[in-house]
């Protein structure tokens, strides 16, 4: 299953190829892994040295914050999307 991934504008030069991005997997966890495999420069922007999602980065799966999901147990369906968002920060 392939799904679409969107990024904030600041991260668009960290990926190559067509946009929106396409990633593949059977679960959300596999899709996220595929995202970093295909676009390794994204890793430093999304995750810190300890492998933790940066505090002001939000990953949404459709309308849901991934923090509240179990990616391993979330199957992909046609039309699903992952959105990388910046948490509202500052003024």
């Amino acid at each position, binding site marked *: 299953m392939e799904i679409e991934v969107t990024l904030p*504008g*600041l*991260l668009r*030069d*960290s990926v190559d190829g067509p946009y929106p991005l396409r990633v593949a997997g059977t679960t959300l966890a596999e899709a996220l892994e595929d995202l970093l495999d295909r676009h*390794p*420069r994204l890793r*430093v*922007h*999304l995750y*810190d*040295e*300890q*492998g933790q999602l*940066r505090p*002001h*980065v939000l990953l949404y799966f459709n309308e849901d914050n991934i923090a509240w999901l179990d990616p391993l147990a979330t199957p992909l369906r046609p039309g699903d999307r992952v959105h990388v968002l*910046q*948490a509202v*920060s500052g003024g």
Partner: protein
Amino acid sequence: MPENVTLLVGTNKGAFFFHSDAARKEWRMTGPHLGGWEVYSLLGDSRHGRRIYAGTSHFVYGPTIRVSDDLGETWTELETSPRYDKESGFKLERIWQIVPGHASQPDTLYAGVQEAGLFASHDRGTTWSEITSLTAHPTRPSWFPGAGGLCLHTILVDPTNARRMWVAMSAVGVFRTDDGGQTWTVCTKGLPGVPTGMPDDGVGRCVHKMVQDPHDPDTLYMQFHGGVFTSTDAGDSWTPIENGLPGNFGFPMCITKSGALFLIPLDSDERRYVPEGRIQVYRSTDRGASWAPVGSGLPQRPEYVGVLRDAMAVDSLDSPGIYFGTTMGQLFYSPDEGETWNQIPAQLPRITTVKTWVTD
């Protein structure tokens, strides 16, 4: 061969480049480049073609290095930027300085980062590795951040000795290696401690900027948190050089190839703007023995601005140009070693770094 001068200006919202010829009267601006990214470090590198390195960071997305081989028309993010190992426990937040290696190492670059550490690339920036001997120094538990963060902001590679290098960190001090980065010596004797709340084991010295004398590699000069100092023994000891200055607080310092020193005092560590709202450059032509205000053409109206530690630079022409940018985004230049000043007609974001790049 005609010479071109490019002024590389980093801000907290991108970079701007200004191009001129040796006369430095007319400037052409390009940018914003890398809009939205903090640009704390820039390097114009002529060793293999013409490449600009930019240390970019963002409080949400972290730091990486981006390069341009066409004067900023297009940019490429390095596949592998400096990054601490997971096991180190450190977080890399900004890239404060990118400098070329010794002339005998044309593929080498060094990067100074926050939180404080030093990285090296020996393949023109393709891969980077941390020089772990520095962060493994026994004083590391006592390293304490200044207001700008725990940053390694100055790297001086000795042009006469490829194995000798100094780094300066806030609010830590100066460290020197004499063996190509295998071991480091704390070089803070004579520098007053600043209150960090940590044990005084020679660190806790808040160096703001440091430069090397072009004629004597053992002579260094420093703008300190509260003081201006020189060392004539490669950093082993420091003595004050403040005769003629209105105060001893400030951030930037630069030196021309003839040895003229420049700095811009600020009111105090509590106010951090120029005294009485008057931007005034000070110059020393006697190795810091005396200082005097220099130049005409700077604003006469009140300008309560600061100048950050990396926001002042000189170029390498025979009649050196001096440049500085303010925290309010003003950019000033002198084409005649500080005698006359002009403002480039642009209002930029907060200026974090100013570098010069002279090319044929």
